[in-house]
């Protein structure tokens, strides 16, 4: 049956897991969501991703695909005739999308994560500076990639929208926890508008965690009290 042919091992709170979920929604691919319990790893996960032992893992038939952005591209390649393409057709535009997706994981998200863990004022200031530089880069990248359309991928959300947008709920939770506006309409107007559009997309809404629920969860896994 089509439904059991595609499974996704993941967890509701993980932004990385959100990525393939949005992609599967965009392509109207039914799948079984196998939720991992926080704090433990299932046999299936360890067997399907022996290298990293991390979620998400897509199981297509019995073949596992790991690493969230790689899974998104796999979904785009496999169900190419269903729904719009998640990457632009031009090789240079595709390179830009991949470049910025890698930047988001290597630099931007690392900075966001460290904000929640940041101790003193000095540390916080340094992280804020990093995030502001990152946001400025992404604001410009959005203007370049979107070419006047609502999303990085143009008329519809795509690979890069998903790569960044998956962090929006965590971004809101962090803003609340540290009492600082990280995504500021005054500084990054285009990115802010994009964020609003992204969160309202029908492929995103069902899988975007509620801020309150996520904030509760964050308190559990980041025990250090903030602000």
């Amino acid at each position, binding site marked *: 049956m089509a439904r059991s042919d595609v499974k996704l091992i993941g967890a509701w709170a993980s932004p990385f897991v959100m990525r393939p979920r949005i992609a599967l929604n965009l392509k109207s691919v039914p799948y079984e969501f196998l939720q991992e319990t926080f704090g433990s790893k299932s046999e299936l996960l360890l067997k399907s991703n022996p*290298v990293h032992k991390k979620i998400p893992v897509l199981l*297509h038939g019995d*073949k596992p*695909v*790991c*690493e969230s952005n*790689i*899974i998104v*591209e*796999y979904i785009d*390649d*496999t169900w190419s005739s269903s729904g719009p393409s998640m990457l632009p057709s031009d*090789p*240079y535009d*595709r*390179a830009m999308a*991949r*470049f910025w997706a*890698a*930047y988001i994981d290597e*630099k931007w998200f690392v900075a966001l994560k460290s904000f929640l863990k940041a101790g003193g004022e000095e540390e916080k200031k340094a992280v804020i500076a990093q995030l502001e530089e990152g946001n400025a*880069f992404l604001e410009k990248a959005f203007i370049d990639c979107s070419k006047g359309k609502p999303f990085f991928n143009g008329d519809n959300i795509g690979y890069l929208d998903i790569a960044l947008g998956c962090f929006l709920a965590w971004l809101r939770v962090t803003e609340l926890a540290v009492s600082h506006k990280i995504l500021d309409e005054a500084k990054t107007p285009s990115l802010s508008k994009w964020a609003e559009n992204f969160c309202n997309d029908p492929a995103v809404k069902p899988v975007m965690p509620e801020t309150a629920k996520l904030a509760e969860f964050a308190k559990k896994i980041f025990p250090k009290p903030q602000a």
Partner: protein
Amino acid sequence: MAERSESEEVKLLGMWASPFSRRIEIALTLKGVSYEFSEEDITNKSSLLLQLNPVYKMIPVLVHNGKPISESLVILEYIDETWRDNPILPQDPYEKAMARFWAKFVDEQIYVTAMKVVGKIGEERDAVVEATRDLLMFLEKELVGKDFFGGRSLGFVDIVATLVAFWLMRTEEIVGVKVVPVEKFPEIHRWVKNLLGNDVIKKCIPPEDEHLQYIRARSCVLSLGFV
């Protein structure tokens, strides 16, 4: 024959001893693409480099018809999509996903772990060597029954993993530890021999003597000597 219009201009900002730069040269050479190479002094970066890669300020940067692309894995995919002769990535979506997975593994796991050996001695060094070997075992298993990671011929993972063959393995002499002993890694050793049988590889890797000299000169006691 690779098509080339009059206006097509390919330039690579790189560094002769960098595995990330050399992998781009391998890809371009495999595809028969002519390019202008610009050697960067990484201790004194040119204003051109800073202008073309403001985000990371690093080589390699490929410039095609005036448009810059950074990040070696992104550049490799761009090259494969732009010049279609001698494909580097497989066509099949699953095989493609696996190639991307292993390439990421080499750069984000093997390279990062192996680099930690820098400046370490004794037990600390041994721990890093052990960790590196555990990671290399995954690659060892991937090579069983194959001439190359790409199967019968060179592919994406082979090009990326030249980092292991001609950088990590070349530093063994300087590090004073056989990180990749043939008894433990017969497949990897067999694969290196296969690589050395390929004309493009032979042409594009740094000449051994100069390379070893460079690594020795750059390191105090233990260094993998890449940028």
